[in-house]
């Protein structure tokens, strides 16, 4: 079966999961919770199989490589990472709103990948610069970091809604603040790992570990913003609204590192 077709089913599945999470939040139905989780897990399994099929398919085409090498593949992997991070973190933070957020983000990303005209979903061969053992570790650590930041962005928005709009349907503000902090601290470590693996790769490919290329610089800008966040949290005890704002600014930097550099600026990372 065609992997892009499976991805379109997965897109729908995540939408359905988000919808069921929403129902369980509105109507406080415990029995519905279970279904939301089952649909999410099914979506993740389908998506995993699509990624594997695409991987195998690339080998059949004689241009075998991990499906992490163009914009479409990175979007699919991004949504996959968000759901995986959610399912892992769920053990500690069981809350349906957290589920709604993650599935909705995953849905949005996949919908963009499938429906937007400027995302090419064909399997392309790897240019020489991308033929490296560092590809997988660099992309995996970076996108897991992005996934953590996406979730913390969501919880920060909810936190602000909770505080400013006093929406009673939202979970406890302290709970949201806690998830934001945990996700950012894990994301920060993964981002650091992503930058380090990228540096090791750049050193092999271009003979320098750091060259102030726009993508490199933007990843540093992101790192500095979240680094400032962690310092204000740990050393100065900032909580609440101020933290949420820093977290939102940090995620804007993430989006710019991921997309803006490719669309707006030019550099060595033009292939993503």
């Amino acid at each position, binding site marked *: 079966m065609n992997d892009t077709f499976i991805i379109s089913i997965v897109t729908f599945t995540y939408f359905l999961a988000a919808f069921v999470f929403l129902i369980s939040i509105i109507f406080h139905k415990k029995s519905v919770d279970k279904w939301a989780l089952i649909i999410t897990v099914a979506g993740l399994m389908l998506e995993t199989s699509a990624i594997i099929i695409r991987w195998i398919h690339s080998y059949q085409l004689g241009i075998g490589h991990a499906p992490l090498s163009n914009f479409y593949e990175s979007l699919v992997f991004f949504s996959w990472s968000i759901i995986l991070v959610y399912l892992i973190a769920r053990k500690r933070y069981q809350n349906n709103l957290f589920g709604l957020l993650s599935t909705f983000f995953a849905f949005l990303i996949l919908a963009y990948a499938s429906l937007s005209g400027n995302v090419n979903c064909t399997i*392309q061969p790897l240019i020489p610069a991308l033929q*490296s053992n560092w590809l997988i570790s660099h992309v995996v650590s970076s996108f897991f970091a992005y996934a953590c930041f996406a979730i913390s962005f969501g919880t920060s928005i909810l936190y602000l809604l909770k505080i400013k709009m006093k929406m009673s349907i939202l979970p406890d503000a302290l709970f949201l603040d806690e998830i934001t902090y945990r996700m950012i601290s894990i994301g920060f470590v993964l981002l650091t790992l992503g930058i*380090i693996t990228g540096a090791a790769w750049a050193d092999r*490919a271009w*003979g320098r570990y750091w060259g102030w290329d726009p993508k490199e610089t933007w990843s540093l800008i992101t790192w500095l*913003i979240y680094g400032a966040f962690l310092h204000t949290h740990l*050393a100065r005890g900032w909580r609440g609204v101020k933290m949420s704002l820093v977290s939102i600014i940090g995620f804007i930097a993430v989006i710019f590192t991921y997309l803006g550099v490719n669309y707006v*600026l030019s550099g060595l990372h033009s292939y993503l």
Partner: protein
Amino acid sequence: MIKKLHKLFSSVKLTIFLFLFLAVTSIMGTIIQQGLPMERYKSLYSPSVFSALKFFNIFDMYHSWWFTTLLTLLSINIIVCTFKQVPRIIRLISPEKKEIDDTVFKSSQIRKTLQSQKKLSDIERQAEILSESLVGTPVKTVKNDTIYFLAERGRYSRLGMIFVHISILLILAGGLIGTMLGFVGQMNIVEGERSNTVKLFGGKGTEKLGFHIRCDDFTVEFYGTGMPKEYKTDFTIIDNDKKITSGAMKVNHPFIYKGLKFCQATYGIAGVSDLLIGVKNNKTGVKTALKPGIMKKVPLPDSNASFAIAKFVTNQGGMGPAVLGVLLEPGKAQHDIFWIFQNGHNINQQQKSAFTFTLDGFSRLYYTGIQVSKDPGVPLVWIGFCLIMIGFILSLFFTHKRIWIRISASQDKYEISIAASVSKNRKTFEEKLEGLTGKITVE
């Protein structure tokens, strides 16, 4: 004054300010392209904007005086803050004193006092379970009829923060060494030729290597789509006119010699060699093959005319590779100059010419683009990278937890005092403690 400076540099406010200031200013360098020749910038900006940007060294801002100053301030900030923490951390990670200090029950972050009328052995057992499930196996001590249970875990996680800060300093130091003692540049070498000159990036002149590198052969493979699949340079290092070593360099597979790193970066077409031109004498119908070099006149067979190639072009007018041929016939006032293509089309050739030419063969002469870099700071940076990950793992996945439990008799019941400290996740710890202490007091 010194006190004020010390206060400034030991403040986390400064760290946060520097982080955010570095982040905001760094954006500039991603919008304004770095390291272009000055003439380009002059044509892009008005004279006043240009001189302002030049004053702040925006065209190479990451190596500018003010950016370096910011990084230096950050380094001082990190050093001062880390040193301030060192005594406390040494105290925390050095083995616990044998004597029990009762002040912890008054001063520690987390404190709790309970009363129980249960049997002493039951209380002891529950204290053990409590410390086991919250921290770790406790050590029991008895002093003046008072029983103490002490447990500690994850002491060395306290080092995580120190490791992270030291590693940032190492990375910055490595970067500084690289900028001062290293260089990055490129050398383009045509197949068969050799070079010892590296053109440095950012218009910083050239660097002579103490040896030559010769490009023996360059090969490139393409996918069906026309994208390059692999390209590689077969090279020889020639030091003092002696061949030292030969090898092949591919993208992502650099070669290191005398502390210099050579990376296959790019390639291009330098020209053409082995040109093969077919000539047909239109009168006799005889075809012959010519191998003229560029700008070398060759006589044409069975005639007194001669022929030369002025230049080779990879794609002339969208019709593919072509050579510009010059036909010299005695008795004609003007040379006949025309394009010769592979399919035999001769553009601009005079109609009544006695010869027809075709471009029968040629081989492209490539040049290889090798990026050359020297960076003695790299080992420090790698140590920094390893240390930062160790530091993160220590502080993220391990928590320093301590618990002190004191059981003392007071009249007909026992008083149980609990003190604990955790380096993080205090809320979760307190919730757990609350749940467990409930069990002790329940009759």
